[in-house]
């Protein structure tokens, strides 16, 4: 029997949009039951409601413990290892939250983990990307043991709302939480701009932008078209912008409808992050740049000249 537990990420205010994408992936399993687990220090009704409204959810399970104020991987795993035995699969989105704890859970259960699941052929046969998305492997996992996986959210759109909200069940679990890890603080980049992982339009800058100061031209252009801002690894490496803006193999994998690559040469590892974008626009002064091989629309030119002209065109 296929019985799936989806671990629901939230920030204490809202359910992470990745949860509805994981549920889309889950629809390929034809599971008898799909539960979404929410961990809270204090339950938040709005988050519980959002999870209960997602299509395909059988039950929303809530667990309350002070440790979940700022959940650490080790604490999440302490809870999960006490409750996953009745499930055949445990899934979570491939956010830094999910990627951090899932391998720890898998190892404690003595099972392997599938990272970045991108296609479900059957409950135990899947596709996942390797080599920065340049080689897709089809793998078969053993069906006689728990299967732990992270889901590549860029491969799935969010499922819709269910007509009937799923029932909510608070769980009483007695767990001994580890004391070897302590949360100190979170420094979240505050931004009024759209979220990079879920925005329909993204403008990214690369090494060609030249400096942290020059990144203003990228922000200005993004604001005019209501886009989120990203960056190539080279731009992060050079210190122009913080790491949470990195798009690529070792940063965020995104799938916006429209993607602008500005001053980005198109290294393999960057392309890995944008393969699922709808339309890719490249702006680069080097007409030989590899980004033009993957771009749907390319414009050869200096970004500092091109972006203001694009802004004028948009305002027309």
């Amino acid at each position: 029997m296929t019985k799936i537990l989806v671990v629901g990420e939230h920030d204490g205010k809202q359910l992470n949009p990745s949860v509805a994408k994981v549920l889309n992936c889950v629809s390929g399993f034809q599971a008898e039951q799909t539960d979404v687990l929410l961990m809270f220090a204090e339950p938040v009704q709005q988050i519980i409601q959002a999870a209960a409204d997602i299509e395909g959810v059988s039950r929303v399970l809530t667990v309350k413990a002070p440790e979940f104020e700022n959940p650490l991987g080790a604490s999440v795993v302490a809870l999960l290892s006490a409750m996953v035995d009745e499930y055949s699969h445990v899934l979570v989105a491939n956010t830094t939250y999910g990627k951090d704890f899932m391998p720890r859970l898998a190892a404690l259960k003595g099972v392997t983990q599938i990272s970045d699941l991108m296609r479900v052929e059957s409950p135990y046969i899947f596709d996942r990307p390797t080599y920065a998305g340049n080689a897709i492997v089809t793998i078969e996992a053993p069906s006689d043991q728990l299967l732990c996986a992270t889901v590549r959210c860029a491969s799935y759109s969010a499922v819709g709302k269910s007509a009937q909200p799923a029932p909510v069940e608070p769980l009483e679990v007695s767990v001994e939480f580890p004391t070897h890890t302590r949360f100190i603080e979170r420094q979240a980049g505050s931004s009024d701009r759209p979220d990079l992982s879920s925005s329909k339009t993204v403008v990214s800058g690369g090494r060609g932008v030249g400096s942290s100061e020059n990144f203003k031209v990228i922000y200005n252009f993004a604001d005019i078209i209501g886009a989120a801002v990203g960056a190539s690894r080279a731009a992060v490496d050079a210190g122009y912008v913080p790491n949470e803006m990195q798009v690529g193999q070792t940063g965020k994998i995104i799938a916006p409808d429209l993607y602008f690559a500005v001053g980005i040469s198109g290294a393999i590892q960057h392309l890995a992050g944008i393969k699922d974008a709808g339309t890719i626009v490249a702006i680069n002064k080097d007409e030989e740049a590899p980004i033009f091989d993957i771009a749907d629309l390319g414009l050869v030119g200096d970004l500092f000249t091109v972006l203001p002209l694009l802004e004028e065109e948009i305002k027309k």
Partner: protein
Amino acid sequence: MKILVGIKRTVDPNVRIQVKADGSGVALESVKMSVNPFDEIALEEALRMREAGKAEEVIAVSVGSGECQDQLRTALAMGADRAILVQHDEPLEALVVAQVFVAIAAKEEPGIILLGKQAIDDDAGQTAQMTAALWNRAQATYASKIEIEGTKARVTREIDVGLDIIEVDLPAVISADLRLNEPRYVKLPDIMKAKRKPLAKTDLSELGVATENKLKVLKTSPPPARKPGRKVADEAELIGELRKTGLI
């Protein structure tokens, strides 16, 4: 304190790999191989801790074929004190590699196992967390800053929304992210010196680790190709195209 650093032999990050036509895998014959970039960052951090007097010895460990000796020699040239090769010719899943690190840790008793956050070949990103789980120790993944304070480490972690700062009791497993440091270049005299540094060889049975890959790879395929694009003449044409499809 000893620091154990994982060194994986992977395809060089600048190589464009090809999937074999028969779907049996990726063509790696005569392709340039390197130290996994994140492992290089992990090693650099361990070396800096030793140079700052926070650690006494840095041990580089690689799990793989005899050819991994090339990457271990690079690690020794960068400054690792000694190396251990756990020889095994077939690729191993993270769960097995984690068992290897824990078996070595039982002998060496390191204060930190410092690993890359992911390898750029299989992109799995599991070994550090699995090692921490099996070792029953704290984990601090995606580190961009590590401060050792006595028997504790304060680690700044790169997460989706910014940075998390956590404190872990040592021994612990820490995984390196991109911005932790910039690895040093290896100088020629160091390469010569590295040849005389100890490189021990062992294998899974000596360490008491059962080889058991759990996943079966059925086939390997290239990703679906995007349809070819085109260059536009100017800004007006670009915006015109985007307006046509309703994207702007």
